[in-house]
């Protein structure tokens, strides 16, 4: 996937690649050229990523090479045991969940999975859950409470699926009850927004004691395209909408809507999946260490207080 504003960087990468193939015979001047180009490329990457516009962040947050839920399972946990189904109607693979180990701790981990190729994207419905996905999440949260193990939620969705069956089976009710379950369980919930935090479809599993965002993730009440088409009456105004919405991790931290920003490697998570996930794992462990010291009622009170505070007069 090639982002328009990354074009000059990719072009330099290509040049470096071509030159390094030519340099196999060890000519010094080519090696010098390569090193110069690499410096230039790093400087450019720095510049571009230091000055990202909100809409460019939207594009990065949606980048298909960004680590997805399954990558986090692979690099951050061991002994993952997937658990399926809502025990009511069906199984929705847009949200995956199950038991896993993170360091020496058993956790209940769940999150949106967008898929990484055509087949898996269809299987996971592009990470847009049906009511069954949210009801599975509620079931797993209740089990986590029963076993007194912490909950980790990984958030990455454009939103809950707007379909006929989804409406008939109570998408609204499923989201409302998910939020309610998040608020009422007596174990810690740490939520990490790793890509797109799309509206009700995200908050349904992101009502946590601690909410963290990756550096280039976004979190909003409506997509910039949707916002532009409603308020500006034109989807072309998506850049302006993204700007006005204050949907970047930096804005949301400043507004006290999220608790922490997790840094990404230079040039974004899609350039170094493992490094990104290690950063997430470190931040997550730190939070779990402190939250697991709190009592069930303290955890519930902390969550209630946190959300009652949102937007209050300061």
């Amino acid at each position, binding site marked *: 996937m090639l982002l328009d504003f990354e074009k000059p960087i990719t072009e330099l990468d290509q040049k470096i690649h071509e030159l390094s193939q030519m340099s196999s015979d060890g000519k010094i001047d080519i090696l010098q050229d390569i090193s110069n180009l690499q410096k230039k490329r790093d400087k450019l990457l720095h510049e571009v990523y230091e000055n990202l516009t909100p809409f460019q962040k939207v594009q990065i947050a949606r980048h298909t090479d960004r680590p997805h839920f399954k990558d986090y399972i692979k690099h951050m946990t061991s002994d993952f045991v997937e658990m399926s189904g809502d025990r009511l109607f069906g199984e929705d693979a847009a949200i995956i969940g199950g038991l896993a180990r993170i360091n020496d701790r058993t956790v209940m981990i769940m999150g949106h999975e967008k898929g990484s190729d055509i087949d898996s994207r269809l299987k996971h419905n592009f990470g847009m859950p049906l009511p069954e996905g949210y009801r599975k999440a509620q079931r797993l949260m209740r089990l986590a409470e029963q076993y007194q193990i912490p909950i980790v939620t990984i958030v990455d969705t454009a939103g809950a699926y707007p379909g006929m069956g989804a409406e008939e089976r109570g998408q609204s*009710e499923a989201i409302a009850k998910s939020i309610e379950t998040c*608020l009422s369980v007596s174990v810690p919930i740490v939520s990490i927004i790793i890509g797109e935090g799309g509206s009700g479809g995200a908050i349904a599993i992101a009502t946590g004691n601690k909410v963290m965002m990756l550096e280039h993730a976004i979190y909003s009440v409506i997509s910039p395209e949707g916002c532009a088409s409603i308020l500006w*009456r034109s989807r072309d105004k998506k850049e302006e909408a993204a700007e006005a919405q*204050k949907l970047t991790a930096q804005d949301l931290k400043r507004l006290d*809507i999220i608790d922490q920003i997790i840094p990404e490697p230079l040039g974004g998570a899609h350039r170094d999946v493992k490094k990104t996930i290690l950063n997430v794992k470190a931040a997550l462990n730190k939070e779990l260490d402190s939250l697991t010291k709190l009592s069930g009622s303290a955890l519930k009170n902390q969550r209630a207080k946190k*959300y009652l505070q949102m937007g*209050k007069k300061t």
Partner: protein
Amino acid sequence: MNWISNYVRPKLRALVGAKNETPENLWTKCPKCEQMLFMRDLERNHYVCTNCDHHLRMSAEQRLKFLFDEGQYKEIDLPEAQNDPLKFKDTKRYSDRLKTYRDKTKNMDAVRIATGTISDEKLVVCAFDFNFMGGSMGIVVGESIVRAAEEALRIKKPLLIITASGGARMQEGAFSLMQMPKSMVAVEMMKNAGLPYLVLLTDPTTGGVSASFAMAGDIAIAEPEAMIGFAGRRVIEETIREKLPDNFQTAEHLLEHGMIDMVVHRHELRAKLSRILRLLNQRHA
């Protein structure tokens, strides 16, 4: 020939009377059957079309007056909150929009909170006003739901929320999203106190409002033909590339799918509510 009295007279009357009797506030058109309805008849019929029985939208004030005994109630001031936390501007400044709607509705935001009685059963009501930015939920609305729940807890009485909302207040960005969990904290407060929390879903109830407190009531009542759903009709049609059936997302459709308890005609509403309140308020002998 009564040609003259049937045709010429009304025409003449229209010409002569046009000066002071502006038909605009005397007559209104039913959005469903398009019949012209005399405002006073409509008011007397509680904004139910006298021709086709369509339930027209009511303002929060009209709701409260209609619902409480003798139209009497005590209104509670809306809580103060951050007004325009993002300094939002689309084609217009959000702060200017707010001012326009505040002038137009004589209210601070999209809800009114009041206490009163229905057939002598006391309760707290929080009624949405669709006329105020489509009844959208921003910080003040979220705060108001908490305020209403706190009042219900204080007087140990049930809470009824009457919804009419297009969803989140986009101009407040993620703050409006955060009102979903905030409103659910209010719902939890009611549940933990063992107090009834009832919802009356009216046309329309969608988006972030339907996906939080609106669909979390102990008892969910809806008005006939009210549009209730998560995603908007157009969004769904664009996604599935299919036209939806006419009755899709109507109160009756939700009832059929087990998503609400009952659909109640506006003329039966007070009686139904008073019965529910009496059953719940006088639980023990």
